């Protein structure tokens, strides 16, 4: 299962590299090791899913990659530049309640655009309103939007600042299953038109197999990279095809789950 992905970015350049990243938290005088020796290379334009048992440190790894948490050992480099902190060139999308409730849809999308001129800003906002299908809700507040629309808004706010990398931390975790399925389609559509590098944390096996070029399987705490699966199925993926099921079962096996209930 190590064949090259068919649809990954043509450029083989490495975008993000973690070198021996380790994370130890001090809690009540005890040190808890959360991440251990994470070595990972993510190519430019690649769609990576991080999966693993809940509480294993997936989100911690994402926060380290995003510069929100400095690793206690090892380093993260993006374009060969050491990551020191959060940066508008890479935006983290949270699970829920990440949009600003005091701003309208337009205000949220334009939040990171204060350096642009008014006209440019308006144009950028209009573009992402269109792309994320939020037309007619420009002046609405998040409290008037459904859960799916809020997440589309959060993605729109992230994309508006034109980041190279999107980190998504279980972005659809709080949505109902139908909305999640639609949102995955939307995300793939954006990824295919805009070609950003996406690192996506999920605990949902199907989600990972539907979306990712490569699925990184983390072990339980302290998290190590247990396996990396390449999903070499072109999009749109037929989720009842034999190949899809093969990949899914393979992933379930790697996580250590039986595929009967």
């Amino acid at each position, binding site marked *: 299962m190590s064949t090259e992905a068919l649809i990954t970015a043509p450029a083989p350049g490495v975008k993000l590299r973690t070198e021996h990243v380790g994370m130890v938290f001090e809690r009540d005088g005890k040190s808890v090791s959360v991440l251990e020796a994470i070595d990972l290379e993510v190519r430019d334009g690649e769609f990576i899913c991080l999966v693993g048992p809940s509480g294993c440190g997936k989100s911690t790894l994402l926060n380290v990659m995003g510069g*929100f948490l400095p690793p206690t050992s090892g380093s993260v480099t993006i374009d060969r530049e050491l990551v020191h902190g*959060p940066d508008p060139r890479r935006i983290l999308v949270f699970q829920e309640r990440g949009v*600003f409730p*005091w701003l309208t849809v337009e205000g949220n999308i334009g939040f*990171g655009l204060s350096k642009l001129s008014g006209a440019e800003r308006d144009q950028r906002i209009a573009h992402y309103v269109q792309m994320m299908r939020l037309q007619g809700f420009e002046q609405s*507040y998040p*409290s008037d939007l459904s859960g799916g629309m809020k997440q589309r808004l959060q993605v729109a706010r992230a994309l508006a600042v034109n980041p190279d990398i999107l980190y998504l931390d279980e972005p659809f975790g709080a949505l109902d299953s139908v909305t999640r399925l639609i949102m995955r389609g939307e995300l793939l559509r954006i990824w295919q038109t805009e070609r950003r590098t996406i690192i996506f944390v999920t605990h949902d096996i199907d989600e990972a197999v539907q979306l990712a070029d490569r699925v990184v399987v983390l072990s339980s705490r302290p998290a190590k990279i247990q396996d990396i699966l390449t999903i070499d199925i072109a999009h749109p993926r037929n989720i009842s095809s034999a190949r899809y099921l093969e990949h899914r079962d393979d992933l379930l096996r790697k996580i250590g789950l039986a595929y009967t209930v």
Partner: protein
Amino acid sequence: MNALARPGRWENFFWPLLAAALLLALWHYSVIWTATKVFPSPLSVEKGLAELLRKHVLWADIGDSLRRVAIGFGTAGVIGIPLGLTLGWYPTVNQVLNPVLQILRPISPIAWIPVAILFFGIGDHAAIFLIFLGAFFPIVVACVSGVSNVPSIFRRAGRNFGLAPVQILTRVVFRAALPQILIGLRIALGIAWLVVVAGEMIAVDSGLGYLVIDSRNSGKRYDLVVAAMLLIGLIGLALDLGFRQLEKMRSVRWGFGHES
């Protein structure tokens, strides 16, 4: 809600009006039954109110009281909000100043009257200082807790979009804490209105508080005392209702658990 279960529109007004009317009737007949010569009946209070209006002093008194509240409460907001935001934002500063604030906070503004007179002499400034003290602490406390309750997710998003710390404070933290700050301001305004009456009884010779004490002192005019008390109540209610309108602004409504 089910339309059938909803009380009729008229009921929203009918029962409160009935309760008020019953209370007035109780007051009226109590005055008659006890044959008191001192305490006024509702009718004589109404006549007293009319007399005050005729003499044209009432509007000046109301204006003076409102002006003192506006200055005292306004100053408390102008100083208290930035201070509260700073204390909430920098926990180390809060650790240093919090004990002092917590000791000063429970001291009733009334207890400050001698000190206020010592500082400012008898006059407007002393009264305004008392109002300031009454309003200041609830505002600071609301800001501190408002800031510390801002979900870290908003701050992280602010950092992620490249905001400088000052911008995170003004564009994210302040906005996220605003509903709670407004609640603090509303409580502070209520206290300011309580304190102005007390302040005016001692330090000045105008305003509704002065009207109450002056009506008693110059000829035991209890009809005017009660008339002024009722006015204080009504204006306090109007201030509170007016302030509540702010909570309906779209950019803060999310914080008040209104529908959607």
